[in-house]
């Protein structure tokens, strides 16, 4: 996201990057950032907590208005409530899925819906990025 933030800023569009990975965000050095110390996969909040999500985004808008020094990372005042860092199992294997250029659907119903709209060659096989329908 750092590359995208830099490109947008160069076009005159102010950006803010939300983060829950401090070291990566510090490395890519976005112009404005907020840091939420939640486990990966919860960049903008916890599931089923609409009030907390709203307060987080309210803080993000405030940071947007308040950050004046490029490269600032504002730490947001939310706590997961238990020590998830310690609870997380030590990574010993590779949990990532196999990497192929075939689209991976969340469900068979999604696959059928895309297949009906776009046909086999674009919905179910690898094709060039510019040929993938964006809508």
């Amino acid at each position: 996201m750092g590359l995208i933030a830099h490109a947008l800023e160069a076009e005159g569009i102010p950006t803010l990057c939300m983060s829950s990975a401090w070291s990566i965000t510090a490395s890519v050095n976005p112009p404005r950032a907020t840091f939420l110390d939640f486990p990966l996969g919860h960049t903008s909040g916890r599931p089923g907590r609409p009030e907390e999500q709203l307060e987080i985004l309210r803080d993000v808008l405030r940071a947007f208005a308040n950050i004046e020094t490029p490269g600032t990372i504002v730490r947001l005042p939310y706590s997961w409530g238990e020590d998830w860092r310690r609870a997380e199992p030590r990574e010993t294997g590779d949990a990532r899925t196999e990497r192929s250029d075939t689209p991976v659907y969340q469900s068979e119903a999604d696959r059928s819906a895309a297949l009906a709209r776009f046909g086999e060659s674009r919905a179910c096989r690898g094709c060039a990025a510019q040929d993938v329908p964006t809508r």
Partner: protein
Amino acid sequence: MAEDAPVDYIARTLATYRKLGYPDYRWARNEGVPPFAPLSREVSRSRLLLIASGGIYRSGQVAFHHKDDVSFREIPSDVDTGELRTSHFAYDQTAARRDPNVVFPIEPLRALVKEGALGGLCDDVLTFMGGIYSQRRLREELVPRLLENARGQAPDLALLVPV
């Protein structure tokens, strides 16, 4: 490490990769002062473009593939969140599939527009699947197309939500 020190994902991922015999992954490292465009108006009068990299698509759209997918999707900002799906090779999607707002905060943003804290939302949210290992392909293929779309939507602010 201090009790409340953030997890160092760079160190952790390097250790995992080394254990698996993979070459070191090099994160983008940008030194110096980043470019910084000032806000052109108050946030309460600004239109915001949301860009999310958690592999979110809408049911009926083509899903992401998991090998340096440099395509993107446009999702209307008034989308029913029940139609949102995720496809990503690297993170635990359990929470995102239960409540997409954890990586695609559209409902809180719509609420902030309604209460007047934010001016409005651009018509479409832009999504892609992060974890693209080829920085060249990111720079040459994805970024220019995202920029072209962003220019067309003419936002006052862009909020980036990676995973």
